[in-house]
Each structure stands twice: as structure tokens, then as C-alpha cells.
């Protein structure tokens, strides 16, 4: 639009309507901006997006000739009013008057003094109005109706306006000449303004002036000429003025940053430098609060300035930036360390800057398209950010500020906990090259040796810090990292000893997400190590919610069940999303889960006789997929992960373990798992074993004896391991059979149950269920619960874990006893199911429903 409008506008002249003219000047400004600020790319886009707010654009006029233009406009307006007065056209006067008022208001908005002409016009208008009214009364011939109405309206309007600017009118009436002169004085650049108008305006004026003036002078500073003319006093004063304007509606933030930048160059003493840097960094962060993330260049300069600030502070320990300064001091005084006060404390907070910088980095990653080059470019900045964080950590450790050191240590941990060893090495290497002193710091990689030890050291530091929030986060990050490094047992022990399952529901969403991530990673670690049962039980928890994406903050909530999110909820959801590079691959996760489901549940399903039992035994997601696959009339070659696993499951059910193995190994997703070869070997072996089990369960009714040798040949296992598998099944009474050593066969002793017998058993089951639930209900009513039963319970729970008949046997074993590990107090509490935090759902309507459903699952 602007282009066309401008060509049109250039043709027409001052006559063009005012609105047009405004837009025009906007565009002009924009263009000028562009030329002037080529060194600041990026900001232009933002400006474009923001142009309807207008405030910014108008401000540009302050520095441009637009200022004069406006004065001219006012003059023109006053003139036309004058003319209208002469012909007594009150309608026109009223219009013009409105326009004038608007212009003047704009003038006020941009912090410029109203020209005396305005006051003069007002005064003149008043007198002529009175005259007109008097004349009207006496005149025999009435005015035209609309003219008279306009006159009356004008009278009331004028009265109001006059009242508003009473003092100025008075001043003017007393001495019009002096008033004029005062205005001139204000406008003149060299002269320090006298407090002629309101006090507030003076300050604003001062700033404006210095903006202009300083700008000139600073360019000369660059040339090395007048640097000395900047006394300390002036730097601080300017700083005060800038910070005064900060946060006001029409302050030009970009301009402020620019001034501060120059001030930072000019600052003479450490004190000044620190003060200016503090102001500058805040102004950078303030720059554009409405945008989704901070412009990258602003971020980069903020990072540089934080670095500088920390450097300055580290180099000169006589200055300290603290959040609460007890000693009151004036912003305008230069301060230096003295004997009485050896350390100058300055109000500010380095840690919040670092926090903010890190947050902004994450926000930018959340909002940049992860598949573009830009994302990769942005990701490269992490190295610099990590340096800043390490530097800050060194500073805080040097200062011995425990709390801030802990916070910054957590930031650091947050950057490395999900990374593999190589990346951490690279990051650390970068820090050491940037900050050579860092290699002596106790928490650097060169001191700790390996990344695991580094993370361990960071976590231990955080555990010692008194903040429960940081402790929890550190614990979870630690677990995550252990799981990532395949230390499943350690990670599991830590998870269970932390007792986080019990309290995670009360934690904030971010921590819950981290918890979910840690648990999922734990499941993957178990899978990688071939602990299929553990992996199955861990991953099942999260997959049964069917909200994996959301629970891991790797995708937004799907609109279901008619739950509609408010924009705020959606926004906060969005803000919690994990940046793409930290995602856990969902396809891999699903593959791991489904494969472990297959290995655990296919034999279980085969071992059960009735359809009803089967329905209960299998986990829902797997069961549903399997049913769906069975209903298919025609099965094409597998395309994606699920297809592969479903077809493999069917093959396993049919005893075709080789086909099953080939299908599973053919999945491309394994290339992401790390130790691909090992995992595949493990899977192949598992498939063989489970194949034997499934085969025996499925076909036992049709044989009286099966030779072990045949089994071993069919499944390519050694006779010894087949014997071991069969023995185990017999021992656990999964299989009604016995081995005949002499002939080397399995003899099945299974008896078919008649219908009546089956029913009798089912009935007996139900009745005992009923009694149990009655007992439970009574227990709950009478209080006490399982804890009241005394410490013997813990030992007793153990006896029934040897079952292993169902898939549940193994996983329970894992959980129940471990939960009790350190807790002397929690003996005997039955395991309540490893809980998954509901994550984002908690504060929602739908969350409650889901939580309810989940408790049922766990129970």
C-alpha cells in the first residue's frame, strides 16, 4: 500500500488530507529508518508488523524535520481560524478548532512544547467569541441556525480548554513577549532550558536535547576528538534521564538502546560502566515485549554486554551488583570504593539477566521453524550462551553467592543434561578457549574429567543448595543423563529413591515435563539394555494416556472431548514446548514401546485360554493395534513402524520367529537408538526366546510330547537354553508339563477343563475378588490402611512376586520393593503404580477426567 500511496502523495501537495499526510510521513520515516539503520537488520520486519501502533513512527519525527512540519500545521490551522473569524463562520471555526486541539495533543504526546501560537489563538478566540456572543444578543438579525449552534458549542469547548491550560494562558496574558521568548529558548539547542513550563516537561526536553546533542558529540568521540568533554557527571545524568523515560508510553526503545550504547563507550569509570551496562542490558530486554521472541541481533548484543558486565565485575571486585542494596544512594552521584565502604554495591541483578538471556534463547528456538537453516544458525549461538553462563557461574562462585550460583549452575545443567558426551565436550572446549581461566574452575570439564562427572558435580552442587525446586530439577536432569548414558540401574535407583512419583503432581508444569522426559528416557535405557519387561512397564504408563506428545511437551494439546482451551492456556502451553533439538524421537519411542509390548504380551496372550482373560491381560494400546491388524483382510508390505511391529507380532503368534525377527530388524528407526547393532542382537535373541514360549503356549494342547531337540532346531537355540526356558515355565507353573530326561522330551500333562469346571473357577475367582474388595472397603472406612498392618507386610509382599505368569509379575517386582528403598518410614505401603505426571493437563477440565481414568489404571 505504501508504495502506491506515496507516489500519489508526492503528486499532491499540502492540500492532501491530514490522515494521508500522516501515513505518508510514516512511510517516509520508515524509509529513512531503513537507510539509516542498515546495520540493524531484522528490526525492520518488526517495525512493519507493529506499524499500526503508530507511536514509534511518530517518534521518528522528533529527530526529523517533522517537528517543524507540525508547528507549521498548527500555524496553518490558526490562520484558517483567523480567516473564518473574520467572516464569522463558526462552523468552520469549530472544525478548525477541533483540528487544532488534536494537533496540540499530538504535540504533547511526543513531548514537545506547545507553540505559544496556540495559547495566543486561544486567547484571541476567547475574546472574539465573547464579542460575537455579545453581538448576537444585541443583533436584530439572528444568525443562521447551524452557525448559532456551532457558536454555542464552541463556547463550551473553549471554556473547557481554557481551564485546562489556565496557567499558560495567565502567563501569556501577563506578558505575551516573555512567553514567546521562553518558548524560543526551549527550542534553541545550546541553551539550557529554564523551568518555564511544567517541571516534567523540562526533563523530557532535556533528554530530547541531549539525544540530539549527544548524538553529534558521540560521532566526534568516535573520531577521538572530544571524548574528554564527557565528564562523569554528564554520563550519569544522561543515564538518569534515560531511565526516567523508560517504561513510558512513547519512549523510543531502540533509540534508548542506541544512546546507552554510546554512553557505555563514553563511560569513564568502572562505576559508570557498570551502571550504563545494567541500564543497557535491561533496555535490550525491554526492546519489544510484544514479539514472540527477542530479535536475534538484540539478543547477541545483550549477550555481549552481559559478558562485558561480568568481566568488569570480575576484574574489579570492589564493585558488586546486588539485588537489595541497603544503603540508599543517589543515581546522580559518582561512587567509588572508600575505606569505610570498601565495596560499592549497585542495585541490579546479574542472575536475572542470565536467566532472561537463556529464556529468550529458548523462546527463539521455540518459534523458529526447526527444519530451516535459521534454526541451525540459531542453535550455533548456544555455544556463546553456554560461555556466558559459565562465566557467570565463575563470577558467582568467586563472589560466593550461593543462591545465584545454584541458579546459574542449573541453567548450565539444563543446557547439557540431554546432550551426548561429544556435544558436551565440544561445548566445554568452546568455553575453555573463550575463557582460559575457566579450566581452573572446579566445575569445568578439564577438572572433572568426563561429562558424567561434570553433571554429577553440578547436580551435587544443586542438591546442596537449599531450593527444593532446583533440587528436584537437578535430580531429574541427573536421572535423564544417567538414562541417556545407559546407566539404567543407577537412574532407576535414583528415581525411586527420590520419591518423586509421590510428589510430582504438585510440581509446576515445567518440572512435570522434565519428569516425564526422564521417565521416558529411563524406559528407553531399559530397552537398550535388553530389559524388556522394565521398558514395557515404564513406557506403558505414558503410552496409555495417549497423550505422549503433550506430556513430553513436544506438541500441542489435541482438541478432544470438546475441551476447548482458552487463549491464555494455549499460550502457556506453547511457551512450555521443548525446543526441537531436545525432542525425544517419538517414533523411536513408540517402536521401543510396541516391540517390548510384543515381547511381553504375545506370549501372555498365548498362555490364556479364554477371550475374557485375554482382554484383561493385554495393554490397551497394543491390544487395539493388534485387533485392528487382525481385522485386515489383506496385509500389504509394512510401511511404517506400527505396520512392521504388528506384522511381526502376528508372525510371532504363528511361531514364525524368523519372519518376526526380519520385520523387526528391518525397521529403519533403530538407526536412532545409539547402539543399533547391539539392540538388534538383543531383539533377535529375545524374539527367539519368546518365540519358544509362545509356541509352547499355543500348541501345547495339541501335543503330548515335544522333543527338546526339535524345539532347539526350530528356534535356533541351544538345547541348553531351550531346556532352561522350558524349566522356567514348568517351575513357574505356566506350563503343565515335565521334562523327561531320558528321552529328551517335554511331556505335557495338561488337562482340558470342561465348561462347568471353567465356570466354577471363574466363580471362585469372582467371589474371592468380592471378599477382597469388601475388605479393602472396610479398611478404607476404618482407617489405617495397609500401613497399619505393621512392618511384616513388606516381607510378605515379596512372596507373591515370584509369579511371573503374567506380564505384571516382573514389572511389579521392579517397582514395589524399590520404592521402599531408603524410606524407613514407608515400609509396607503397597506400590501405588508408577505415576506419570499428567503434565499439562492438571489445570484443565479435561485433566481431571484423565487423572481419574489413570488412577483406575494404576489401581
Amino acid at each position, binding site marked *: 500500500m505504501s508504495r502506491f500511496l506515496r507516489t500519489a502523495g508526492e503528486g499532491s501537495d499540502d492540500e492532501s488530507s491530514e490522515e494521508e499526510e500522516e501515513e505518508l510521513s510514516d512511510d517516509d520515516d520508515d524509509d529513512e529508518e531503513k537507510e539509516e539503520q542498515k546495520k540493524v537488520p531484522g528490526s525492520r520486519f518488526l517495525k512493519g508488523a507493529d506499524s499500526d501502533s503508530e507511536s514509534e513512527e511518530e517518534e521518528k519525527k522528533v529527530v526529523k524535520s517533522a517537528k517543524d512540519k507540525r508547528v507549521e500545521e498548527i500555524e496553518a490551522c490558526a490562520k484558517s481560524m483567523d480567516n473564518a473569524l473574520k467572516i464569522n463562520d463558526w462552523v468552520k471555526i469549530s472544525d478548525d478548532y477541533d483540528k487544532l486541539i488534536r494537533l496540540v495533543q499530538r504535540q504533547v504526546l511526543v513531548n514537545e512544547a506547545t507553540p505559544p501560537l496556540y495559547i495566543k489563538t486561544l486567547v484571541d478566540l476567547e475574546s472574539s467569541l465573547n464579542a460575537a456572543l455579545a453581538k448576537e444578543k444585541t443583533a436584530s438579525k439572528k444568525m443562521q441556525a447551524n452557525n448559532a449552534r456551532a457558536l454555542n458549542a464552541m463556547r463550551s469547548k473553549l471554556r473547557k480548554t481554557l481551564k485546562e491550560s489556565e496557567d499558560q494562558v495567565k502567563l501569556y496574558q501577563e506578558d505575551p513577549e516573555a512567553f514567546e521568548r521562553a518558548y524560543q529558548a526551549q527550542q534553541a539547542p545550546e541553551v539550557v532550558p529554564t523551568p518555564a513550563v511544567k517541571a516534567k516537561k523540562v526533563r523530557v526536553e532535556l533528554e530530547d536535547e541531549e539525544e540530539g546533542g549527544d548524538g553529534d558529540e558521540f560521532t566526534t568521540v568516535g573520531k577521538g576528538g572530544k571524548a574528554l568533554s564527557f565528564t562523569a557527571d554528564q554520563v550519569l545524568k544522561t543515564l538518569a534521564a534515560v531511565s526516567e523515560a523508560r517504561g513510558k508510553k512513547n519512549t523510543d526503545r531502540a533509540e534508548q538502546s542506541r544512546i546507552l550504547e554510546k554512553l557505555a563507550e563514553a563511560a569513564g569509570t568502572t562505576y559508570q560502566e557498570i551502571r550504563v551496562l545494567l541500564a543497557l542490558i535491561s533496555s535490550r530486554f525491554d526492546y519489544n515485549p510484544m514479539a514472540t521472541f527477542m530479535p536475534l541481533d538484540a539478543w547477541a548484543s545483550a549477550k555481549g554486554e552481559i559478558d562485558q558486565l561480568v568481566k568488569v565485575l570480575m576484574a574489579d571486585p570492589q564493585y558488586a551488583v546486588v539485588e537489595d542494596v541497603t544503603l540508599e544512594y543517589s543515581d546522580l552521584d559518582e561512587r567509588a570504593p572508600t575505606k569505610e565502604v570498601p565495596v560499592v554495591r549497585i542495585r541490579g541483578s546479574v542472575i536475572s539477566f542470565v536467566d532472561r538471556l537463556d529464556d529468550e534463547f529458548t523462546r527463539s528456538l521455540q518459534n523458529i521453524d526447526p527444519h530451516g537453516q535459521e534454526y541451525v544458525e540459531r542453535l550455533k549461538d548456544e555455544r556463546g550462551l553456554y560461555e556466558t553462563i559459565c562465566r557467570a557461574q565463575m563470577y558467582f562462585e568467586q563472589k560466593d553467592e550461593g543462591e545465584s550460583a545454584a541458579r546459574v549452575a542449573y541453567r548450565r545443567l539444563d543446557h547439557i543434561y540431554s546432550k551426548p558426551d561429544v556435544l558436551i565436550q565440544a561445548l566445554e572446549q568452546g568455553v575453555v578457549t573463550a575463557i582460559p581461566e575457566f579450566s581452573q574452575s572446579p566445575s569445568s570439564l578439564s577438572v572433572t574429567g568426563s561429562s558424567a562427572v561434570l553433571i554429577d558435580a553440578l547436580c551435587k552442587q544443586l542438591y546442596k543448595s537449599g531450593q527444593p525446586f532446583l533440587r528436584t530439577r537437578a535430580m531429574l536432569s541427573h536421572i535423564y543423563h544417567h538414562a541417556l548414558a545407559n546407566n539404567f540401574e543407577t537412574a532407576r535407583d535414583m528415581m525411586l529413591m527420590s520419591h518423586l512419583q509421590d510428589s510430582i503432581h504438585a510440581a509446576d508444569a515445567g518440572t512435570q515435563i522434565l519428569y516425564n522426559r526422564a521417565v521416558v528416557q529411563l524406559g528407553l535405557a531399559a530397552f537398550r539394555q535388553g530389559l524388556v519387561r522394565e521398558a514395557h512397564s515404564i513406557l506403558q504408563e505414558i503410552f496409555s494416556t495417549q497423550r505422549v506428545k503433550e506430556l513430553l511437551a513436544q506438541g500441542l494439546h489435541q482438541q478432544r472431548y470438546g475441551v476447548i482451551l482458552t487463549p491464555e492456556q494455549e499460550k502457556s502451553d506453547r511457551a512450555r514446548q521443548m525446543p526441537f533439538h531436545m525432542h525425544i524421537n517419538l517414533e523411536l519411542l513408540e517402536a521401543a514401546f510396541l516391540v517390548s509390548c510384543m515381547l511381553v504380551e504375545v506370549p501372555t496372550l498365548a498362555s490364556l485360554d479364554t477371550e475374557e482373560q485375554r482382554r484383561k491381560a493385554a495393554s490397551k494400546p497394543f491390544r487395539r493395534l493388534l485387533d485392528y491388524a487382525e481385522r485386515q483382510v489383506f496385509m500389504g508390505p509394512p510401511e511404517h513402524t506400527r505396520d512392521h511391529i504388528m506384522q511381526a507380532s502376528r508372525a510371532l503368534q504363528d511361531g514364525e520367529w524368523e519372519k518376526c525377527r526380519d520385520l523387526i530388524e528391518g525397521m529403519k528407526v533403530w538407526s536412532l537408538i545409539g547402539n543399533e547393532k547391539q539392540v538388534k542382537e538383543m531383539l533377535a535373541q529375545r524374539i527367539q526366546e519368546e518365540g519358544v514360549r509362545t509356541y509352547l503356549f499355543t500348541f501345547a494342547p495339541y501335543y503330548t510330547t515335544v522333543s527338546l531337540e526339535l524345539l532347539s532346531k526350530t528356534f535356533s537355540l541351544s538345547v541348553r537354553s531351550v531346556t532352561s526356558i522350558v524349566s522356567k515355565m514348568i517351575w513357574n507353573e505356566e506350563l503343565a508339563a515335565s521334562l523327561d530326561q531320558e528321552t529328551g522330551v517335554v511331556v505335557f500333562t495338561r488337562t482340558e477343563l470342561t465348561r462347568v469346571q471353567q465356570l466354577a473357577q471363574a466363580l471362585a475367582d469372582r467371589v474371592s475378588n468380592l471378599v477382597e474388595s469388601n475388605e479393602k472397603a472396610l479398611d478404607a472406612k476404618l482407617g489405617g490402611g495397609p500401613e497399619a498392618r505393621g512392618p511384616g507386610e513388606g*516381607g510378605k509382599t515379596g512372596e507373591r512376586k515370584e509369579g511371573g505368569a503374567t506380564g505384571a509379575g516382573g514389572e511389579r517386582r521392579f517397582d514395589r520393593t524399590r520404592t521402599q528403598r531408603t524410606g524407613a518410614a514407608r515400609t509396607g505401603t503397597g506400590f501405588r503404580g508408577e505415576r506419570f505426571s499428567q503434565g499439562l493437563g492438571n489445570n484443565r477440565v479435561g485433566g481431571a477426567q484423565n487423572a481419574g481414568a489413570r488412577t483406575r489404571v494404576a489401581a
Partner: protein
Amino acid sequence: MATYDLTQRMIPYLDRHLALPLLAHVSELSIFPAKQLQEAQYELARRTNMVDYSVSLFEQLHPSDEVPEEFGSKRSNVETTNERLQKEAQVVLDVIENPEVAQALRQDKMQNLNYLREKHNLTHEEINALYHFGQFQYTYGNYSGAAQFLYHFLVLSTDPELNLSAQWGKLASDILSGDWQTAKDELDRLREAIDNRSTSLVPAASAGVGIDSASSTALAQLQGRTWYLHWSLFVYFNHPEGRHALLEVFLSPAYLNTIQTSCPWILRYLAAAAVISRKTATSGRIRHAVKEVVRVVQMENYQYHDPITDFLKMLFIDFDFEAAQKELGEAEKLIENDFFLQNFKDEFLDNARYFISEAYCRIHRQIDIADLSARLNLSRSEGEKWIVNLIRDTRMGADAKIDLSRNIIVIDKPHAPVYQSVIERTRGLSFRTQALGVAMQRRAMGEAVQRGGGGDRRPRGDRGDRGAADREREQQQEHLVPPAPAAVEVA
């Protein structure tokens, strides 16, 4: 065998004096360089007040060197201190050995203190002198004397810290003087003290100081339990009833957690004890003990394993009899060398063989005698004898027969009819329901309900768990002396 030696892992949790016999034992085995062991022994002894012993060790170690002077001064020092402390303690001893006083003393410690203070001018400091003297005697190896003084101190003192310390001291003295019965009693008291310590201290801590002190109490408790686990081995493997007590204590959740958390090597002794006490205890509980141990062993396999735990793992988890046999051979050597287990070698082997043959017989229906003998590490004729004894001794007798013409054992196990399992499952239901009714009635009457803590009342998990439990009961039914019906447990 040095790889399986636990001495180095255990010593940090033992007292100086308790470590000495361990070291002495290890030096007999010659699996470590003798020189190093001597040095270690010397280092241990040097810090105690056992001057003569230290000197002799030093002379062994450095036959040519002069004995350092410090020992001379130390000796005189020890003697004077001993006299001084004895004098102080004698005051108290005189009072309390007075029969009149002994009669006047009651259970209530506070009252006793008041009584002693009023009648005999005994102050806290003087009573503490008993403690100091006891401790001092301990340092120069007069264990029975130390035990005696510490006993008197424990009777009188009310200071919780010193009391705990005195209890440890008393235990060590009893152990070292070989007084197992007293030591066992002392162990029980000590365990009580450790377990109660948390409950008495935690509320106070959480009220005032917050998390840190609470966690430090937990830490202290963990440490206490770890020590307990190590020290008690001396008693449990020497006292005739020790193994049962060991199983009972070590398998209680708190101690099991401690083993898993801080000292997984104790699993060896737990496993060994579980195997050894198969015959002697009431069979039901020990079967569970073995199962429980197997479960823990499997879980901790990544942290700790040795031939004994591997034996259990191979036998009950992998059912690999060949490997189990191999591990058993290793375990035999290990036990010969183990300080605590050396006296139990035969018992262990015997019971381990029993476990193997039991598992073997349950799984097989026809067994080659030669094969089974090989599995048991026995020769052919020995094996036959063993099997005959096995069949004779156990309830397998009805099912198993030896067929010598083919050299096999034939096991004909009748499987339980369906009706029996239904009966099993429904047995006791009506009684349990009745119990429910009674409980509700009592509640209605406003009485405090005393529920019988029978195992059957525990809340059960899903079907799988229950199935396992039921099978469990069937197994018992089948193989063991029939247990009392489940319902009876619910009193």
C-alpha cells in the same frame, strides 16, 4: 580367590578391634601378600592402646629395626590413665555393688538417678566415669572388663548419645570376648535403639530445623544400620540360632533397603544363611526367605555378585543346572576361605544340593541318576545314596521311585484336580466375610477395632498377582507340610 574376598569392603564398617580377627584370618589364607597384611595389622593396632601387641607386630614387620619410642611413653601413659579412670569408676562401683543399693534400684532410670544422687552423692560425671573406664579398657583389649563396665553404665545413664555409643561398645566387647548369647541380646537392643532413633528424633527435627536435619538423621540411621549389618555377622554366624535371626532381621524392609543401598556384599551372607537354614527352620518361612533372597539377588546382580548369589540366580532364575553346578563348586572354595562362613561349608553344600535336586525333581519326570549325581558334584555311588536319602527324608517319597534297571528316577506327580483348586480358592472366604461382619459390628459398638494382621488380608493387586499367590499356596500344599488353612490366620 582374592577376587571374592570381602575383607577390604567390610573393614571400613567395622571397629578397629573387630577388624583384627578378620585380618588374622585373611593372613592365614595367603591370598594376599603377607607383608601387606602385616603392615595393615600393625597400622590397626598402633592406634589402639594394645601396646604389647603392637610392639610384637612391629617386630614381626621390621625384625631389624628398633622399636619406636612412642610405645614406651604410650605404655606408661596408658597405665596412669587406667589407674586414674579406675579410681573414678570404682567410686560408682562401690555404691552400686552395695546390696542395699542394688535392691533399691528400679526400672525407672530417672528415679534411680535421683535415688543415687540423694543417698550416695553420685553425679552424672561420676556415672560417666563408668563409660570412660569401660571404653578405655576396650582400647587395650580387656573386652570382658569393658563389657562389664558398660553394662553398669547402661543401666544407670540416661544420656541418649553416650548410651548408644556404650551399646556399640558393649556389643563389640561381647563379640570379642566370644559371649554370643549376650551379644545377641545386645544386638536386639541395639537394633531397637537404631530403629527408634529416627522416630524419636525426626518429629523434633522436622518441627524446628527442617529438611536438612531430618535427612541427616536418616543418614545417621542408614549408617547405623550399615554398621549393624556388618557387626551382627560376627554374632549371627556364631550363635546357634543366629542364621534364623539373621534372615529375620536382614529381610525386614528397612535392612533390606540398607543392604541394597549401601552394602550389597552383605547379600552373600544373606544368601548363604538362607541356604543353610533350609532344614532347620519352619519350612514355609525359609522357602520364602530363599525366594526373597533370589529376588534381591536378581535385582542387585548389576551391583554385586559372587558364586553364592550366582548359584541361586542360576538355579532359580535361569534354571541352568549345569551353570549352577559350576557356581556351587566355586562357592565351595569361597566358603572355605570366608571368615564367617568357613564353619558352614558342609551344611551349605548339603542344603544347596537339596535345592538343586528339589528343583530338578519338580521339573523332570524321568531323571538319569548319573546326571543328577553330576549336577550335585557327587560321584555315582554317593549320588545314589544321596538320592535314596532324599526320597526317604522328604515327602517326595510317594511320587518318586528309583528304577535301577534303567538307572533312572521316575517321578509321577499326580496333578491336582480342578475341584481341589476351586476349594483352595474359596476356602476361608466365609470366615473372612464373617470377620468383616464382626469388625463392622465392633466399629458400630464404638470399640477400637483390632484387626488380625493375617497375610491374607493384604490388599492384592491384579489378577496376575493373585494367581501367583494362589499357586503359591498350592505349592505349599503340594510340597510341604500342609499349612494351616488360610482362614485360620485371620484371628
